[in-house]
């Protein structure tokens, strides 16, 4: 049984505490949406969870991942504001690279692209894509390699309604397969049964 647990987590930016005392536990098939005003530390929280930023206090633990996912960083897909794709390379080339680099192959790149509705433009350089298409291509990155935990930072920014719904379906499937999702968002993601973590209410 995989479990992601945060205990009394605190994060800081440039020496100033942006949040503290955040605790949650996620089991298989559970999702957590993180909401709050701008500057409340949603992105910082996600970066602290996956270990890109050191935690000022508290700790995050991931257990039950076996040999393939021994720690939090290895168990996470991180979808940040930036898409982590090279404009010079084709969409499918980008995905193939990430699949080879990240290991644990899940879907072949062309299938992942079809899942996000980009099946016919895999050969185009990533730089030619529109904002929404870029976002969808980087959502396809979540599908080419398997990770139990998805950390999503404003995943639906730039997406139209149809892609929004499509992405909600993808997240639903991931949860059904026993995955976990932590998403920072302003917009409703259409996740059923997701718990909510409100940040920054005291700080204002």
């Amino acid at each position: 049984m995989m479990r992601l647990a945060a205990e009394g987590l605190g994060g800081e930016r440039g020496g100033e505490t942006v949040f503290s005392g955040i605790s949650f536990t996620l089991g298989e098939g559970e999702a957590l949406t993180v909401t709050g005003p701008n500057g409340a530390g949603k992105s910082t929280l996600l970066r602290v969870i996956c270990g890109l930023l050191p935690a000022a206090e508290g700790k995050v633990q991931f257990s039950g991942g076996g040999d393939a996912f021994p720690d939090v960083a290895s168990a996470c897909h991180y979808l940040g504001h930036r898409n982590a794709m090279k404009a010079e390379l084709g969409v499918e080339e980008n995905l193939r690279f990430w699949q080879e680099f990240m290991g644990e192959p899940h879907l072949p790149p062309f299938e992942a692209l079809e899942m996000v509705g980009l099946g016919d433009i895999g050969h185009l350089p990533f730089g030619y894509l529109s904002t929404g298409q870029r976002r969808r291509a980087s959502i396809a990155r979540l599908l080419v390699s398997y990770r139990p935990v998805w950390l999503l930072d404003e995943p639906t920014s730039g997406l139209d309604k149809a892609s929004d719904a499509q992405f909600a379906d993808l997240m639903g499937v991931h949860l059904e397969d026993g995955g976990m999702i932590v998403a920072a968002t302003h917009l409703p993601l259409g996740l059923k049964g997701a718990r909510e973590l409100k940040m920054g209410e005291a700080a204002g």
Partner: protein
Amino acid sequence: MLALFRRELQIGVRTGNGALTGVLFFLAVVAVIPFGVGPDLNLLARIGPAILWIGALLAGLLGLERLFQADREDGSLDLMLLADSRHMRALTVFVKCCAHWTVNVLPLVVVTPLLGLFMNVEPAGILAATATLAVGTPAITFIGAVGAALAVALPRGGLLVSVLVLPLTIPVLIFGVAAARGAVADPDPFLPPFLILAALMLFFAVIGPLAASLALRWGGD
């Protein structure tokens, strides 16, 4: 790791300007020297290897600041750092350095024989300069990676990287030029400085990526 190397090569080849800028800069440095020094062929032949080395050193520093910056800007760097348990960070940096060297610095080594002719360096000297550059320039890239990692978050870190890195490359320059000159000037030996140069390169191949990966780890935001 092979995938990373291949990707870096593809990007380097498709953007293409890195290698061209370096080669043109190298050419510019070497081509103006004879005009500045005057038409003394013996003098040119004597300082030729040194000029080739200085030119290649400076040209090799060009574009180094983009080594991690480009990946940071599009978010790839985050994912590479996260993959630590599958691909050790230092190894990722090492592979990126190798790819950077292949795309941007290897062309400099390739044009060295031609530029050696400009400087009236005799064939043995040209051969020695090319060989020392082939062995020595990776060290410059490995040292440069540390500077690039430190300056990764700075918007215009190019000059800073060069200033940080240049003092550290001095030993490489000294032994590189010593070996290149040793091949032509009679009493000076070639092999000892050449071997020290190779040792320096191997040393920095270990230290550079390790230090750079630590800098990237703690420079994150």
